């Protein structure tokens, strides 16, 4: 199996508070990896360390290594801007750019990093919207505000926006927590489809969702990675008592 991301000895802080402790993790390529765990256990911080967003939070500090295709993204000569183009992110609450149309939302990442070829942009916008099954719904309203779409559509728009810059990895931070079940189901199908082409890491505190969409699952508790294995093994035959207690709902 080839690994897209290897996390080694990763520690992260908010000011003096340590929120991630000695994380080691190998994330397989073109698969969905779910990160589960109770609120405040460091799930979000963990994925924000993978696209160098954590260091932008007030008081955010990181040590250790995160290897993307074998290269440390925290090496001194690495520009975080380049990393963020390779590692896209979808946030908990849909956050389309409110002053922009549907089209411009998808094109924003490309336009603002220097692509101005109109026909190429058209092509990528259409491709990205088709990938997220949004094309049929919005193709006649490409110039309406992105904020005028429904919540589920907005989240798929945000996924399309992330896909448009052609990342290799997509991080998703509880992407369905603000959506209704129907919209959530659409996003889950989308995640399955995208995993054929992309490496996806999804944070969720919905365990059924982790079981449905992911190939691998990591259980994080108080900043430590308790267990990381194939999703099936985690849910059917967890190695530690703590994991078992969490997935059976004894705490969380």
């Amino acid at each position: 199996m080839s690994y897209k991301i290897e996390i080694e000895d990763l520690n992260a802080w908010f000011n003096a508070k340590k929120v991630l402790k000695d994380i080691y993790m190998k994330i397989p390529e073109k698969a969905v990896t779910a990160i589960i765990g109770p609120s405040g256990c460091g799930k979000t911080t963990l994925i924000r360390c993978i696209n160098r967003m954590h260091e932008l939070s007030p008081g955010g500090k990181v040590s250790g290594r995160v290897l993307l295709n074998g290269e440390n993204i925290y090496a001194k000569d690495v520009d975080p801007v380049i990393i963020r183009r390779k590692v896209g992110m979808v946030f908990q609450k849909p956050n389309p750019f409110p002053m922009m149309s549907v089209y411009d939302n998808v094109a924003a990442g490309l336009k603002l990093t220097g692509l101005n070829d109109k026909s190429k942009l058209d092509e990528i916008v259409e491709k990205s919207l088709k990938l997220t099954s949004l094309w049929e719904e919005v193709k006649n309203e490409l110039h309406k505000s992105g904020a005028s779409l429904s919540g589920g559509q907005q989240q798929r728009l945000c996924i399309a926006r992330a896909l448009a810059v052609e990342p290799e990895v997509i991080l998703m931070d509880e992407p369905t927590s603000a959506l209704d079940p129907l919209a959530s189901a659409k996003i889950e199908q989308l995640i399955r489809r995208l995993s054929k082409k992309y490496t996806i890491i999804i944070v969720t505190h919905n365990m059924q969702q982790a079981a449905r969409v992911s190939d691998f699952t990591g259980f994080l508790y108080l900043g430590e990675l308790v267990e990381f294995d194939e999703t099936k093994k985690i849910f059917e035959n967890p190695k530690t008592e703590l994991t078992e207690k969490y997935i059976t709902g004894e705490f969380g």
Partner: protein
Amino acid sequence: MVLLSYVALIIALIPLMNILIETTIRGVSAINLSFFTEQIPPLGQAGGGVGPAIQGTLIVVGLASLVGVPVGVFSGIFLAEFRNTKLTYVSRYLNDVLSGIPSIVIGIFSWIIIVTIIGWSVIAGAFALAIMMIPIVTRTTEEAILLVPITIKEAALALGIPRWKTTLTIVLRNAKKGMITGILLSMARVTGETAPLLLTILGSRFWFGGFTEPSAALSLTIFNFSQSPYSTVDWPRAWGAALVLILMILGINVMVRYYTREKYG
């Protein structure tokens, strides 16, 4: 409680309505076409208009904006983007101090460093007004930028858009309304200034004669006519000029409304 609020509101509105009605009634009789197109007559002399005063106000405020707006906008961006450096704290504090300095002090300051060197001039007046605009524009720009949700900014950064570009495009685009409002309000604020102009552009009866020459302005014209002993000829003109000034400021406020309306929805 509600009744008290209504009473307070009415008390606040009475002087405002009184000023507007009084100025309109007394000013409107002085206004005709030549009021806008002719030069300012000497005190006590019939005829003429306040054309140069309108022109002067527009030129001085325009020139002041040309300097004050960019300086204020970029200072505001700086304060919002670099929240926690020592320089930011000091700058923000100084900016607040600056906004509290009485305009007459700014007038004297401009007089000393510009008028004593190149003489009474449009440049000196614009300099004084620009100094008054900068803290207003800086503060409103900073606040408008801080109102942009962090999630929007993070979305842009996560797309691999460099920080400076995120600020100059995504963030400013979302802060635009607030910034334009601040800029227009700062213009409205200085348009009516009298004291600093008295010490810098001096006042004049003639059309614009160059940036290094004295100039007329509406506020100065109102002041001069209202001080005139020829009450029947000059006082209506003061009211007329006051009405024009109020309408200009009202016009700016209408523009604020226009820019702050919702684009979508």
